[in-house]
């Protein structure tokens, strides 16, 4: 039991105790059923409203009365010590306009059409990674060799960053998520921005087929976005994309290794891969982390009075297992026809990287078991450890044999 709970029994404090690596802490489901909008304390002890039902997460995740910024950032309640997702982001006065402009300019570079044209390059990356993997002595670490590399490679390819720098970007990205050491995160962020600044210059001189070039050309055409905005967009894309995708790749593979019936279905019909990807996104306990918002005004929601500046923590993972929306929600079922999970958010806040993560996981799971039909876990499940100091969760290692 945490310190806050022992002093005040009535207010639950995050993180909740986890019963197993593959499970969401049971306290989340209890609250969803009995107390769907409840005052809690965040992992750093600040008050917040925890929202757990699908209907409410969907409604509030893109509600115009909520935002990411705060009128008094230094004194705003924080979710964690992490620089990026731990507290308020952006300018309070201009947040809505800034967000709209950012999406307006970025969406064509991330659209489903654009991602489809990237598919052959993603397939080549997956093939190369698996070929190298097959040559390693067994058991080998899927987390280190595949899950940590594939998303970094794919996102770097899209952004237009040379091969040699990708590992460094992965390290910075992981650094910014550090929740236990603030200085690690701040330094990682500054170094990454500096790196991107140099790259903007480079793309200006030598345009290529990538996102940074798209933004530089847009700037030359329309005067927007300025360099510092490009730095913010690109670093945010790297941070939001890298670590979350590493977790999905780890857990997606683990889910198939732990559910042989579902793996057999996929092997018999690779056409199920797109549905399997949605189910991985729904089910993977990538982390118990919440999506955070701040109220921009006083309002009442379903009988709860919320005040301007209040922190609201939306739990997509708990919403994704809401029995009001999903039949047999605790079952990993790759044949689900409708899968309106909240993992990629909703509405005007929907994840801009969604088409990218879909193509990446689709290629991986159409290829993985065809190339390594004997792939299996090389250690007992209880020896796997989740990455607790990284906000997005994931595993520290995933030893496999084949």
């Amino acid at each position, binding site marked *: 039991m945490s310190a806050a709970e022992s002093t005040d029994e009535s207010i639950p404090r995050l993180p909740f105790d986890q019963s197993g690596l593959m499970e969401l802490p049971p306290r989340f489901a209890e609250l969803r059923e009995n107390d769907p909008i409840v005052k809690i304390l965040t992992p750093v002890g600040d008050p917040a409203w925890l929202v757990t039902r699908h209907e409410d997460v969907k409604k509030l995740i893109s509600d115009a009365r909520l935002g990411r910024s705060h009128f008094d950032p230094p004194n705003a309640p924080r979710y964690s010590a992490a620089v990026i997702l731990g507290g308020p982001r952006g300018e309070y006065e201009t947040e809505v306009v800034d967000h709209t402009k950012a999406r307006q300019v970025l969406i*064509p570079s991330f*659209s*489903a*059409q654009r991602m489809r044209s990237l598919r052959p390059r993603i397939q080549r990356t997956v093939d190369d990674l698996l070929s190298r993997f097959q040559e390693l002595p067994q058991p080998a670490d899927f987390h280190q060799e595949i899950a940590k590399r594939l998303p970094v490679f794919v996102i770097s390819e899209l952004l237009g960053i040379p091969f040699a720098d990708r590992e460094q970007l992965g390290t910075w990205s992981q650094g910014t998520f550090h929740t236990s050491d603030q200085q690690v995160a701040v330094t990682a962020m500054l170094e990454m921005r500096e790196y991107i600044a140099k790259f903007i210059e480079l793309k200006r001189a030598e345009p290529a087929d990538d996102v940074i070039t798209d933004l530089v050309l847009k700037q030359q055409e329309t005067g927007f976005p300025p360099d510092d905005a490009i730095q913010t967009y690109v670093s945010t894309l790297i941070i939001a994309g890298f670590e979350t995708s590493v977790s999905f790749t780890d857990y997606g593979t683990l889910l198939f290794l732990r559910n042989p019936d579902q793996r057999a279905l996929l092997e018999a019909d690779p056409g199920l891969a797109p549905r399997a990807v949605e189910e991985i996104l729904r089910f993977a306990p990538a982390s118990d982390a919440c999506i955070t918002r701040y109220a921009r005004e006083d309002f009442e929601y379903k009988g709860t009075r919320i005040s301007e500046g209040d922190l609201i923590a939306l739990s997509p993972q708990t919403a994704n297992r809401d029995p009001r929306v999903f039949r047999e929600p605790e079952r990993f079922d790759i044949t689900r026809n409708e899968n309106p999970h909240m993992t990629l958010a909703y*509405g*005007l806040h*929907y994840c801009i990287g*969604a088409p990218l993560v*879909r193509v990446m996981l689709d290629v991986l799971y159409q290829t993985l078991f065809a190339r390594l039909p004997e792939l299996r876990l090389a250690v007992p499940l209880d020896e796997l450890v989740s990455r607790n100091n990284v906000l997005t969760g994931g595993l520290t290692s995933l030893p496999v044999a084949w």
Partner: protein
Amino acid sequence: MKVWIDQSRCLNSRQCEETAPRVFSIADDGLAYVRQNDRLLDQPGGETCQANVPDEDQDAVDTAAYECPGQCIHVIEQP
């Protein structure tokens, strides 16, 4: 009311299909298309394919357009 989709900005969220299933569909290529009289207007899709929206679907289409993550649903109000 008429509606069309700018597919160069579609993020494949499937939200439009969930919100107004009689007017929008995601095809096998992962992109959103408009429907008319139960038929997918996919030749070629985009601005040249505008579907008439039945009165009873107009509110759902307005919601889908407002919530669209790619902001790529274009509604044409007719007098």
